[in-house]
């Protein structure tokens, strides 16, 4: 069991100006990704951890030291919390060189030792040789690395990263992702990463917390959340397209099966305890787990939750195409299937064509039913 005194514990609550009801925990050496749409309170939480913004009620502690406790009127000053903060715009001091920026993070000790340590940190982020350059003379990626070096200069109790990759191009972002992945092996403090990019959260986060309107909706391993969202809202926020309602037809725990009635189709899902026959539920399946029946060479897989329908539309993005299928005898939203473009071409999948697909049983995830929202909401950007 983890030592509760180590790591970062955050619990925040307030009604205004930004409503918050958030609980987070991040272990030393772990990356916690805070994910949510704009205005969900991600950056506010980061500012509260750093002590840059006060929240009405809550408690923040790190490594056994209480930084903020509204009940006990404890509010430690930012400079005493020793946080490393990489801001979205990097917030480098524009009048200082890269070296001097990092030295500012090292406090006011003996200049010679501060300079040596700052040079080491710039080497660590692979910026050796660029010490004398001012921020305006560095590229976006280089500025980001100076910001990381400056944040690490504090030997911080916690490292806070506020969308640090949003201002660089895709190629640089991927390189910086790799570098952060490499660097974090050497860091033993909790790392909180704010991002609106799910791919980034999955790639870099050990854990992920989904925020919406200031509330933490779900916290867990990124792939678990993506495959097993707690409810319809989380499913929507992690960009699952196939979110439907159904009724529990039967529970067969012995066979490990929960049967669902979806329109006129009966589906078999992995056993989901906690529901009874007749319950209305929401269910999801990732579009990549909807498998096309090959026309020329049908396999045994076609017996697993077979569904037939007509292709409504197709959207290709790179090598993958997302196919919207209007399911027979079912009104409402289409079923989405994603597949390689070449596979779609080889199987003559095209708008208007009839297709048969299978829904992989163990990838159907059942959740308690929530009010369904409009399609505009359902497709909102994250």
């Amino acid at each position, binding site marked *: 069991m983890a030592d509760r005194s180590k790591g970062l514990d955050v619990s925040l609550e307030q009604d205004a100006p930004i409503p918050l009801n958030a609980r987070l925990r991040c272990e030393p050496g772990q990356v916690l990704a805070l994910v949510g749409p704009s205005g969900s309170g991600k950056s506010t939480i980061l*500012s509260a951890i*750093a*002590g*840059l913004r006060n929240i009405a009620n809550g408690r923040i502690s790190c490594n056994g030291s209480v930084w903020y406790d509204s009940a006990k009127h404890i509010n430690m000053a*930012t*400079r*005493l919390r*020793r*946080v*490393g*903060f990489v*801001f*979205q*715009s990097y*917030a*480098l*001091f*524009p*009048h200082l060189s890269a070296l001097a920026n990092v030295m*500012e*993070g090292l*406090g*006011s000790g003996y200049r010679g030792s501060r300079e040596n340590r700052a040079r080491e940190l710039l080497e660590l982020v692979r910026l050796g040789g660029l010490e004398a350059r*001012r*921020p*305006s*003379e560095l590229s976006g990626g280089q500025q980001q690395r100076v910001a990381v070096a*400056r*944040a690490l*200069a*504090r030997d911080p109790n916690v490292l806070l990263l506020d969308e640090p990759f949003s201002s660089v191009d895709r190629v640089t972002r991927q390189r910086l992702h790799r570098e952060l992945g490499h660097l974090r092996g050497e860091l033993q403090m909790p790392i909180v990463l704010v991002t609106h990019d799910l791919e980034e959260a999955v790639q870099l986060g050990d854990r992920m917390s989904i925020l919406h309107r200031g509330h933490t909706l779900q916290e867990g391993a990124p792939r678990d959340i993506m495959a097993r969202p707690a409810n319809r809202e989380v499913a929507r926020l992690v960009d699952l397209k196939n979110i439907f309602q159904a009724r529990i037809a039967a529970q067969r725990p012995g066979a490990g099966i929960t049967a669902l009635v979806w329109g006129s189709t009966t589906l078999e899902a992995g056993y989901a305890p906690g529901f009874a026959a007749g319950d209305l539920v929401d269910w999801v399946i990732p579009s990549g787990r909807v498998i096309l029946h090959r026309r020329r060479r049908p396999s045994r897989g076609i017996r697993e939750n077979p569904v037939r329908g007509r292709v409504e539309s197709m959207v290709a993005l790179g090598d993958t195409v997302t196919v919207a299928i209007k399911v027979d005898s079912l009104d409402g939203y289409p079923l989405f299937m994603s597949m390689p473009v070449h596979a779609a071409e080889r199987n003559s999948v095209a708008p208007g064509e009839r297709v048969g697909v299978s829904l992989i049983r163990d990838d159907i995830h059942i959740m308690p039913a929530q009010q369904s929202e409009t399609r505009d909401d359902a497709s909102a950007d994250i």
Partner: protein
Amino acid sequence: MDWTAFLLSLKLAAWTVAILLPLGIFIARHLAWRRYPGKAFVEAALALPLVLPPTVLGYYLLVGLGRASPIGQVYENIFGAPLVFTFEGLLIASIIFNLPFAVQPMQRAFETISQEIRDAASCCGMTSWRKLWRIELPLAWPGIMTAFVLTFAHTIGEFGVVLMVGGSIPGETRTAAIAIYDRVQAFDNAAAGAMSAMLLVISLIAIGIANLATSRAGARRG
């Protein structure tokens, strides 16, 4: 050439700058970064010297600092002499009529320092003084230099307020601008011309120094 008046002008400008710049930095930071009800009114009040006729401002200062005023009486009780028609009275008036010239350029300069930069300084563990010294003042430097030059040049050139509050007492309140007026009244155009030329050169040099310092600061920031 009335060197006494000329040196008095320089002395008044130096004291005004010495007192108003630190005070102005405090007010400018406050106005740049704080939001509160009535802020617009405070800003309007600070800008008044820009639009009021100098004689009107001078009149109110004369009444407000005079022997019958509470401020004038307190001052006289402590120091045993009236405030108006003295160098000290002139200095207080000079600080008040220069407020917008000092505060506004610095306020604009502090407004350009983003919240993130100030937060980054806090996260670097800086105390308020270190933040001011290492980050805020260097970044606001062009505005501070502009405030310095405007205050200095405006003090040397001010006529209406100085005449109302200080009169024209040689060595005490007769500044170069008043002396030029006196020389013209006495048909001594040669002395008036020499002093005017001297003020012109000083003003040009001050603006030149400010521009140079500003452009260097801009180059440093990149």
